[in-house]
C-alpha cells in the first residue's frame, strides 16, 4: 500500500469528540487507516465503538453544535478534507464520495419520487440537463435490478419495500460514479434473503464500476463474506487490522478473538448429541467514553491483561503481511489456543 497515489483515502490519527451533559465523549480516539483504489474495507465493532462517527467524520457530517473533529487528518485523493470549505465539501459529497445508511427511509425524501431524487443528485453534481438525468436515474434503477424501472421512477419511497428502498439508495449513491462509497450498516435492517441480494449487488457493482467501498457493520459474517481487509474497532480505537482471510484464520487481538468465540456459528458442525455448548462470554461491559482511558481500553475485560496494559496504551504493531495489532501481549495471545 506504499506506492504513491495508490490510496484514495488516508485517515490519520482521527479524533472526533462530542460535548454532552456527561462530559466530552471521545467517540473516535486516534484512528488511522488507508483505503486503496477499488478496495473493499470493512470496519467492524460493537455498537458505540465509533464506526458511524468515523464515517460521518470523513463526510464532514458531524453536527457542529455538539461535535467536532478534534485532531487528525483525512486525505481524499491527496486533498485534506478536515480543513476543506463547506462549499467544496458539498461538491464532493454524493458525487466523488457517497454514502448509504442503515435506514433508507431517513435518508430518502418522502415527498419526492425516487426518480426525481436520483435525477436531482445527477443534475447537481454532473451538470447535465434534467432529461438526461432522468434517463440516468432509470439506468441506475435498472442497474440495481429494480424490475420495471421506468414505472418505479414515479413512485414514492413509502411505496417500496425495505429491500427496494435500499436498492434505490445504492442507485442514488452510485449515480455520479463515486470513487468511494461509504456504506454504514447497509443491510442491518433487512431480512436475510434480502441482505444476501443487496450484498451480492454491491459486490457486483464494485466489480463493474471500480468504486472503493468502506463497509461498516457490527456483523462478522457480513465482513467475512464481502470485504478484502478489515479494521476492528473497540471504544473509539483501532485494535486490529488485517486482510480478511488472515483476520479470521488468526485473529490476534484478545477482543477480536473474544468476538469470534462469542458468536453462535452456523458453519461449524454441532456435535452429534445436538447439545448446546456454552458460548464464550466476554465478561463485563464496554468502557464509558467520557473518561480518558489511560492504558488499553480492553484491559478490564481481558484475560491477558498485565499491569502495563492498565497504564500504557499499546501501540499498533505490524506483525507481517499487512496484519497490525495493538496489544502488549500479542506473543502470548498468539501462542494460546484459539
Amino acid at each position: 500500500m506504499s506506492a504513491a497515489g495508490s490510496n484514495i483515502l488516508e485517515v490519520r490519527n482521527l479524533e472526533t469528540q462530542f460535548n454532552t451533559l456527561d462530559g466530552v465523549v471521545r467517540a473516535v480516539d486516534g484512528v488511522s487507516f488507508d483505503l486503496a483504489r477499488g478496495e473493499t474495507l470493512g470496519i467492524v465493532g460493537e455498537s458505540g465503538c465509533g464506526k458511524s462517527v468515523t464515517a460521518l467524520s470523513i463526510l464532514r457530517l458531524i453536527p457542529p453544535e455538539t461535535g467536532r473533529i478534534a485532531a487528525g487528518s483525512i486525505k481524499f485523493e491527496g486533498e485534506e478534507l478536515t480543513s476543506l470549505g463547506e462549499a467544496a465539501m458539498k461538491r464532493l459529497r454524493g458525487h466523488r464520495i457517497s454514502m448509504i445508511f442503515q435506514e433508507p427511509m431517513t435518508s430518502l425524501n418522502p415527498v419526492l419520487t425516487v426518480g426525481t431524487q436520483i435525477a436531482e443528485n445527477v443534475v447537481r453534481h454532473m451538470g447535465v440537463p434534467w432529461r438526461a438525468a432522468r434517463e440516468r436515474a432509470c439506468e441506475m434503477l435498472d442497474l440495481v435490478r429494480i424490475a420495471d424501472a421506468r414505472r418505479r421512477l414515479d413512485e414514492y419511497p413509502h411505496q417500496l419495500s425495505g429491500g427496494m428502498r435500499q436498492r434505490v439508495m445504492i442507485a442514488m449513491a452510485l449515480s455520479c460514479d463515486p470513487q468511494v462509497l461509504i456504506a454504514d450498516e447497509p443491510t442491518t435492517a433487512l431480512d436475510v434473503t434480502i441482505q444476501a441480494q443487496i450484498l451480492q449487488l454491491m459486490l457486483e457493482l464494485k466489480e463493474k464500476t471500480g468504486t472503493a467501498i468502506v463497509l461498516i457493520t457490527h456483523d462478522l459474517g457480513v465482513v467475512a463474506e464481502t470485504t478484502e481487509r478489515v479494521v476492528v474497532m473497540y471504544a473509539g480505537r483501532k485494535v486490529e487490522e488485517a486482510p480478511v482471510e488472515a483476520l479470521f484464520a488468526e485473529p490476534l487481538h484478545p477482543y477480536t478473538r473474544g468476538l469470534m468465540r462469542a458468536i453462535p456459528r452456523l458453519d461449524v458442525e454441532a456435535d452429534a448429541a445436538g447439545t448446546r455448548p456454552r458460548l464464550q462470554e466476554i465478561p463485563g461491559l464496554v468502557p464509558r467514553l467520557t473518561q480518558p482511558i489511560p492504558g488499553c481500553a480492553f484491559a478490564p475485560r481481558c484475560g491477558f491483561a498485565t499491569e502495563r496494559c492498565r497504564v500504557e496504551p499499546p501501540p499498533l504493531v505490524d506483525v507481517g503481511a499487512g496484519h497490525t495489532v495493538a496489544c502488549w501481549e500479542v506473543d502470548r495471545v498468539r501462542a494460546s489456543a484459539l
Partner: protein
Amino acid sequence: MSEPSAAERPVLEVEGLVKHFPIHGGLLQRRTGEVRAVDGVSFSIARGETLGLVGESGCGKSTIGKTVLKLIEPTSGRIVLAGENISALKPGAMWAHRRRIQTIFQDPYSSMNPRLPAGTIVGEPLENFGLSRGRDTDERVAKLFERVGLRPDAMRKYAHEFSGGQRQRLGIAKALSVNPDVIVADEPVSALDVSVQAQVLNLLIDLQEEFRLAYLFISHDLAVMRHISHRIAVMYLGRIVEITTKRRLFSQPLHPYTEALLSAATAPDPKRRRQRKRIVEGDVPSPANPPPGCHFHTRCPYATAECKVTAPPLIEVAEGHHVACLRRPVGGDPGPLSIPG
C-alpha cells in the same frame, strides 16, 4: 443436560391457530380486507424444550407469541397450556393461568416504568399474583437478581441506569419471578452486541435446565436459533413450512424456503463466500395479499404449475420431520430438487 422427555404431555399445545387482522380503508374506514398474519399453525412444546420460530419480517412470529400469551385473541384455533384449554378464556378466567406463561421482549426497557426502581419492577408480578408480600418479596427479588447475574444493590437503580444486556437480565428475572412453565422470548438478544448476547443466551440455557422451562424462542437469526433450540419451525407468510429437530433442519433441510434461508445466512468465514449457493430472488409478498397455492411459489426455483394452485399441507414426510411442499412427498428422496423446464 436435561433432554425433554417424550412421554410427558407437552406443556404448550397449539392447534390450527389463525389470526387475521382486519384492514380498514376508504373514507368510512370500512373493512376492505384482512392480513392473514397467522394462517393455521400447529405445534407443541415439551417441558425443558426450546422450540425456535424463525422466518422473515412480517411472517407472523410475534403474532403467534402474542396470541399464545393471550395478549390478543385468536381468530380461531386451540391453545392448551399445561392441559388446560385457554383459547376461549375471558380475561378474568385467564388470570389464574397467566402466571404459567411469561414473556421476554426484544426491548425490555420500553415495558418498564422509568420511575420505579428495578427491584420493584421485578417484584411486581410476585405481588400481583399474591405470591409474596413486602419483606418476603424483597428477599425473593434479591435471589432472582443474583440468579440472573445482577448485583442485589442494583435493585435500587432505575431502568435507564442499566445497559442493554443488564435490562435483558431484569426482564428475565421478572419473567422468572412467578415460576412459569413457558416463556415466550421474542427476539430477546437481537438488540444486544455479540459479547453480551453470549452472556444472555448462556443464562437462558442455564435457567431452562434448572427449572425445566419450555421456551418459544422467536428470532430471525439462524445461528442463534441453532444454538438455543431443540426443534425449529420455519415460517413463511403466516404458515409453518417446515418443522423438525435442529439437527435435521440444518443437515437435511427439505423445504425450498429453508434452503434459501440457510444459503442466505452469512458465516464468519471468508472461504464460505465462494461456496454460496443460489440466492433466492424477489421480495416477501404482502400477507394481505398472499400468492395463491403455495405462498412461496413466486420465489421458489423449483415451482411447477401445480404449485400456483394447490396449497401444500404440512405433512410428516419422515419421522419427526414435517414439510409443506408439493415436491416433498412422504418417504420421498431427500436429495436436491430439480429445477423444472
